[in-house]
């Protein structure tokens, strides 16, 4: 029982990472109606930029704020410049564009900053929380920031006109134009926000997994899994999904025999797929009823 609790807490701590990533994934999905496979690499690149600023002597919070801003702008530019030419192309072709972006970012980061592992500072410190061994201050900070972001996003999407406009533009671009929404700008805004959230996620995750160009690959996958599990229409669901994935992964690794580090991922995915077979819209996703 003690072990179970410990593993659940450890899973929650990991899960905070996945939850943060899942949030960014759902953001972009709400904005553009597909998944951005390069999300993790964008977050990684943003984190490197922050690292570089800190290495140049800027204080942490200044670097943090600047990175979020730069990432926002970069996200908007990536959408307007890179994805504009393929916006009317078949979806599989757009997926290839995402793959290309992934490749470019990963390779460039490796070239500029090389593949040696770097330390990334945390404003929360690594002291154990409440004196126990279950969770430390940084992990608590991660959970806190993720929840705060979630709250802000919820308020934005449900409570503001701009948020409503973005949701409409993603759901039905043609109808959105018919009510006067500038769909192109909404998509770009969505990208910018997703890039900014991704940057925050990256900067929270790096102190735990250490900064190197391949750090986000596994995390992104877990983030996707969490987002899908929670239901892609629900940011809260994505966060919960992320935490669940962390817990499932940890419990599977601890309690199921033969499952070493490598098979943990596969097992987590399989479990998620099984859940989806019974609840196809994810645990919290809203079933969209459409008449044929």
């Amino acid at each position, binding site marked *: 029982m003690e072990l179970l609790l410990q593993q659940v807490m450890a899973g929650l701590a990991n899960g905070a990472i996945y939850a943060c990533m899942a949030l960014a994934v759902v953001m972009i999905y709400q904005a553009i109606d597909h998944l951005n496979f390069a999300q993790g690499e964008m977050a990684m690149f943003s984190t490197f930029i922050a690292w570089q600023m800190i290495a140049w002597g800027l204080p942490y919070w200044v670097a943090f704020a600047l990175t979020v801003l730069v990432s926002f702008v970069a996200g908007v530019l990536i959408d307007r410049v890179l994805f504009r030419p393929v916006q009317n192309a078949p979806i599989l072709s757009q997926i290839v564009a995402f793959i290309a972006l992934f490749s470019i970012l990963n390779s460039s980061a490796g070239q500029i900053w090389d593949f040696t592992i770097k330390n990334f500072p945390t404003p929360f410190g690594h002291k154990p929380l409440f004196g126990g061994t279950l969770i430390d201050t940084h992990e608590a900070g991660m959970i806190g920031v993720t929840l705060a972001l979630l709250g802000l996003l919820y308020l934005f999407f449900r409570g503001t*006109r701009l948020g*409503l*406009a973005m*949701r*409409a533009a993603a*759901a*039905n671009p*043609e*109808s*959105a*134009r*018919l*009510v*006067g*929404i*500038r*769909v192109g700008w909404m998509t770009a805004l969505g990208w910018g926000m997703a890039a900014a959230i991704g940057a925050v996620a990256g900067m929270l995750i790096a102190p735990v997994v250490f900064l190197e160009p391949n750090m986000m690959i596994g995390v992104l996958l877990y983030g996707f899994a969490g987002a899908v599990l929670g239901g892609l*229409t629900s940011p809260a669901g994505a966060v919960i999904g992320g935490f669940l994935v962390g817990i499932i992964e940890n419990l599977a690794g601890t309690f199921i025999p033969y499952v070493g580090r490598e098979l943990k991922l596969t097992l987590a995915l399989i479990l998620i797929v099984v859940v989806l077979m019974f609840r196809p819209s994810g645990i919290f996703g*809203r079933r*969209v*009823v*459409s*008449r044929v």
Partner: protein
Amino acid sequence: MMLEVAGLDAFYGQNQALYDVGFGVDEGQVRTLLGANGAGKTTILRAICGMVRVAGDIRFDGKRIAGWATEDVVRLGVAHVPEGRGTFLRLSVEENLQLGAMTRKGRREIAADIERVYVSFPRLKERRAQQAGTLSGGEQQMLAVGRALMLRPRLLLLDEPSFGLAPLIVEELFAILRQINAETGVAMLIVEQNAVLALELAEHAYLLETGRVVMDAPSAVVGADESVRRSYLGY
């Protein structure tokens, strides 16, 4: 004249769908575009809203709007209820209505207008928090019209409002449209296959055949015409 169209050609890729179409709608008028499937009626509405490649002249209040982006045409006060209604299925009824007022300012007026829509369409009020996709066909049509009205448009474009609806609902809808035109003075251009109802509501009609206007006359005249009666009115 508020809306003036002259010499309009429209194209879907390499295929031409409209040939030298001309008509007009003035403030407060209700006019209808009739014709069989594929005659080009929907294309005309889409052309006005910048959703189709065109050549020719489209003017609103004297301003050339041919080739304008949809969002900009909307801001002139043109509300389009498209074929298939274009409802935001995943959003609630209330959110759909709020979206109609996206280009307007003034929270209180918008809220008042939403209440006015609920007065015209009481069924929607019952379902205000429901996901729009769960509404019946007739209710979705009413929602679509309601959303268009939220713009406080000067011109309302309706594409086959009777499509797929039971006859009683259609009559209800058209009665409401007549009332709205009387109360607010919004002009309407209605594309319809149901010629009987359309001719009752509109004062003037245009008949389209394979992309050309073949008749341009007051409704009474169109309704009395032999060939129209046989082809479109069924008697």
